[in-house]
């Protein structure tokens, strides 16, 4: 792997961009691997990287049905934070945050991780108490969380509507200063390049169409590019978890749902922090290119269409303008959607499946991007050793039958209530 650096850029600029190599190879799939990861998104590629880097395993393949990072990794709103209320979640996401902080250097690929702060606004005393509780839980577990007063929030985001008679008046907020954003595509490319450099085969345009079973155990996959034998197989396909697991005869506590986002035309800097709300469901940030990135509620019915419906966009726009009135004249230039794998307690599933040799990393709902490095790290641990990493142990597949669910929103089984 040719190292990236300012010096390399200088040399390339002076020599007409000669000398750059392919970021990752385009290998033909081998007939067998020790471990096959189905799904070439951020999580799957991170898993492959850590299998190679941390566990020294090289006979690994990542099979991606389209082009890497083309699923939710390429469609999310790039928010990174770990300020969840439930301990198993905030411990896992905070481990991710630690890895985010060193990711660009580790991968030698600038993923533009920007700890510009993740701010939750409170719109009533009740909101502020809920935010304080969340902040206290985080601080007691060593994770940064600060309550901000009205004045402090205004200083941070001057364009917020601070009028006391606003429909959603600002009472204050809870901020995680270590949280922020990252460039989503770069995460997929960075992990792919680094994993490839360590000998992992990243194979695109390779769709898994079935599993080969030998004596009740998966022994390989059937793909559009031939049959591939494997010792262990890790499913890592986000919104497609249901259909892929169905190939092995399994049903999951997951339902696919569409989540939309949109971006405005680029403007000069106006919002420096990621803004979310305790009461509203819209979230707002400004990308490095200048566009305002907005998201809101999911479309509350099952879908794989990767295409949402106008009411959610309109509601997100209305809420965004209620918070930041200056947004009204900015124009949405592009809207898109991903398919989220909504688990039935809102928390991920990182676990062996009831079929021997088959594993699942999925059910991240709409919170998967921020977890990418920790998801990869823990899944690599599971695939390499057969045992779950302590941080991932609470997210076992059988927790639903046992009653040990981890429900951040406290709404239960039906995903559309989440």
């Amino acid at each position, binding site marked *: 792997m040719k190292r990236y650096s300012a010096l390399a850029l200088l040399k390339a600029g002076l020599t007409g961009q000669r000398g*750059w190599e392919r970021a990752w190879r385009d290998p033909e799939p081998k007939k067998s691997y020790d471990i096959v990861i189905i799904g070439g998104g951020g999580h799957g590629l991170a898993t492959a990287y850590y299998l190679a880097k941390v566990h020294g395993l090289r006979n690994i393949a990542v099979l991606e049905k389209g082009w890497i990072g083309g699923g939710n990794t390429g469609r999310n709103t790039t928010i990174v934070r770990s300020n969840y209320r439930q301990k198993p979640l905030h411990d896992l996401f905070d481990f991710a945050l630690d890895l985010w902080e060193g990711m660009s250097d580790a991968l030698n690929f600038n993923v533009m991780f920007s700890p510009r702060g993740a701010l939750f606004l409170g719109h009533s005393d009740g909101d502020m108490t809920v935010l304080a509780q969340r902040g206290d839980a985080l601080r007691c577990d060593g994770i940064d969380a600060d309550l901000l007063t009205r004045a402090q929030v205004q200083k941070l985001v001057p364009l917020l*509507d601070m009028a006391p008679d606003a429909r*959603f008046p600002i009472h204050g907020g809870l901020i995680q200063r270590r949280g922020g954003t990252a460039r989503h595509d770069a995460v997929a490319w960075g992990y792919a390049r680094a994993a490839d450099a360590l000998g992992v085969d990243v194979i695109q345009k390779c769709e898994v169409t079935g599993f080969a079973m030998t004596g009740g155990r998966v022994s390989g996959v059937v793909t559009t590019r031939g049959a591939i034998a494997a010792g262990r197989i890790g499913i890592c396909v986000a919104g497609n978890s249901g259909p892929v697991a169905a190939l092995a005869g399994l049903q999951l506590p997951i339902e696919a749902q569409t989540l939309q986002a949109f971006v405005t035309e680029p403007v*000069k800097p106006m919002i420096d922090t990621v803004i979310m709300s305790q009461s509203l469901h819209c979230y707002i940030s400004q990308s490095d290119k*200048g566009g305002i990135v907005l998201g809101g509620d999911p479309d509350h019915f099952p879908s794989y269409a990767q295409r949402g419906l106008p009411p959610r966009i309109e509601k997100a726009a209305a809420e965004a303008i209620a918070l930041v009135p200056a947004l009204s*004249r900015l*124009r*949405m230039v592009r*809207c898109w959607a991903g398919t989220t794998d909504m688990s039935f307690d809102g928390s991920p599933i990182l676990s062996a499946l009831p079929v021997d040799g088959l594993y699942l990393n999925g059910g991240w709902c709409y919170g998967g991007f921020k977890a990418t490095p920790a998801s990869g790290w823990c899944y690599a641990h599971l695939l390499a050793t057969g045992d779950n990493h302590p941080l991932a142990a609470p997210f076992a597949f059988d927790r639903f039958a046992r009653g040990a669910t981890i429900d951040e929103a406290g709404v*239960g089984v039906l995903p559309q209530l989440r």
Partner: protein
Amino acid sequence: MSGPSRLPGGPEPTLRFTFDGVPLRARTGDTLAAELLANGIGLVARSFKYHRPRGILSAGVEEPNALVTVGEGGRREPNTRATDVYVYDGLVAHSQNRWPSLAFDLGAINGLAARFLTAGFYYKTFFGPPSRWLLYERFIRRAAGLGKAPTTPDPDPYEHRSAFCDVLVVGGGPAGIAAARAGVQAGERVLLVEQDRIVSEAIDEARVLTRTTATGVWDHGFVTLVQRLVEPGQSPAPGQPAQRLWHVRARRIVLATGAIERPLTFAGNDRPGVMLSQAVRRYIERFKVLPGQRVVIATNNDDAYATADAIAAAGGTVVAILDSRAEKSAIANAAAHPVHTNAFPISTSGRRHHLHSVEADIWTECTRFEADLLAVSGGFTPVVHLHSQAGGALDWHEEIQAFVPGASRQAVSSVGAAAGDLPPVGTAVADLPNPKTSFIDFQNDVTAADIDLAWTEGYRSVEHLKRYTTLGMATDQGKTSNMAALARLASVAGVTIPQAGLTTFRAPFTPVTLGALAGADGGGHAAPSRRLALYDRHQRLAPLWQPLGLWHRPRAYPVAGETLHQAAVREACAVRTVAGIVDISTLAKFAVVGPDAAALLESVCATGIAKLAVGRGRYTFMLREDGMVMDDGTVWRLEENRYLLTSSTGGAERMEAHLSYAHRVLAPHLRVSVVAQQEHFAGIALAGPCAKDILAELTGITPPAHMGLAYAEIAGVPVLILAASYSGERAFELYAVASDAGTVWDALETATRARGGAPYGLEALEFLRIEKGHIVIGAEADGRTTPHDLQLERMLRKSGGFIGAAGLTRPALSAPDRLQLVGLTSDTPIPEGAMLVTATGEPVLGHVTSATGRVLGEGAVALGLLAGGRMRIGESLVATSPTRSQSARVTVTAPLFYDAEGTRYRD
């Protein structure tokens, strides 16, 4: 004279506008782009990355270069295409992304460093700790972005409207008008929309909306339109919106969306003075503007020859026509201009930010032409966006080198140019000697060299190419760059264009303001507000209002400068010592009536119901299917087969759906009806030691015993009296029809105040219920607690058969270390929401769910959820809140602090 100019003749320009502060005049009906050209202005903008001087490329919404800020104050619209705004009197326009001026922009230094700032360069550097990246980012973000957003709120209203039609025709050109006519003749309701100000022909029987863009085609014939009632920055007429978003349901859709001309790729193809050929024609013929005097035309098809004729007719000189085809077509042969075959533009040079000459490769020899306008035509691309959004497939048409609409998934058809009815093109392309300045995506400064680099580095799928180079991701969404990019990708990959891949078309077709998307729901109307029936009564007392979801309810009624806390303490004391009244109207209320009413209630409620006597009520709670406590309330047997169920305010909609599910899906054979009555009846709770006397005085009856009920009248208004207590005092919930409840409130308020009592709000109610250990849905019952966790297990109906019974059998739900409801006491205030830890600080064992000072007496009490709490009575813990720098030493107790024996309820 060189450069663009207004053609002589025609009406005087009378509209006044400014550009970068310079006052100018315009004719009515002209776009800003046309008028800038008319006024001799060719330099209009600076490009995103390299700050290259840019002019006007097109005459339509596909314009990638001429982005200006139009309007002032809260109406300022940055990134407005000058080609898509019509000049009005007083229009103020400014160029963007340049400092100190358009003509002299320091940002052009980026252009000098262009060789280092190739696509994706930022992925290869800027390493180091995140704090260092934040520093780099500050400069990057300042350099990024085009225009500046307004800083003041938008003063104009927006509106949403719905429409239904049999045919929606998108596009008012000849093909669209013909399709509309056909629909009218067939007796269909026709709606025709056109993004321009004019349609090619009037059509009476169809509804026509101009300045209206179809932004997206969604499912089942649903189409969104954005209609501009005024131009950017212009004030709408009083009472009129600035823009209207239409939601249209159409039985079928006809796309007459035309085609967009393709530029050519060569060095310096982004210079002011290089324009699309049909655009040149439009400026001449429609806007009476000549974009240049000495014109070179470069084309691969016959259409550009009409441009040559138009230029000559307007008094310009066609210096050369560079036709890329090897042989002259019939049109070329008939042309009265110098035509060169096998001719390609190779590069341009400029003077004072404008085109000065064009270097051409003609039969492999280089020739230079002096020109101030280069009109290019690389063929035409049908506008297939909406067809594609509707799920339609695309087919490749070799003769026109473009994708045309193929099979359609919905009732969507395309006509005219949009369907591929376009002139064939020659396919020969010249080599690019200088790919570094041959622009593919003008707005994002993506060159052919960037595409080559992306290919070398392995970003080879179309989506990877786009994301790595950012081509096609600017505000024009690649309208003038997609095909050139695919062509370059195909060439570097050694495949055909259709093999190279396809781009995805995403809504909106052209950018839509957030204000239009929000409609009337922007700003203050982003969510409705729900008001109590007794709002006027409360407002008279100037309460502090508290939101819960969409409701606004009185939190306290401060008098004489009291703080919230002082008022709430006074009110709570009044309830404990005399009496108080509180508005409880928002509680969910359901009339459950029929011979099987008890059976339905027993399926939903986890407690006994069937044994409830007529005239009696009881506390009850309801579980989710997974066994967690979902809601709680009371149930009252008003008559043999008539029950009233109350439950929490916040869960009202959920409970209504739940009851409906339990009946209609799980037990449709039950003879029962459920009617939600939350808003029909207002509710007032009268509580306190004097409550019984007050009620007796007002009704003339003996008030019912605790958990009994009665009907009576107060001030002539029928009321239902339910003797329930939330506060812990002897209390009565009084329900009256909402429209009559004011009279009841007045009578109660007078009688209560006469004895020294007072109305109380939700803050005081909180103090009172915490002392009694009453749980609240959302606080103690947070969706993760079972009945056992909340000390409710003794009330579980042993016969089972309720929703949630199965979920409760799961083993982890009986684990002894689960978070369980406890009480907490302390000498100092206990912070609500604080974490419960041991004296050493770790680990976190639970949290404080609700806290208050004792109403009568000293010290603080609280409810909390504590791991294994039932076994920890008597332990000493710390309630700590690091975020508020508060903590308290607490003792774990049973969750009940007041009148454990319930003596207050007995008369």
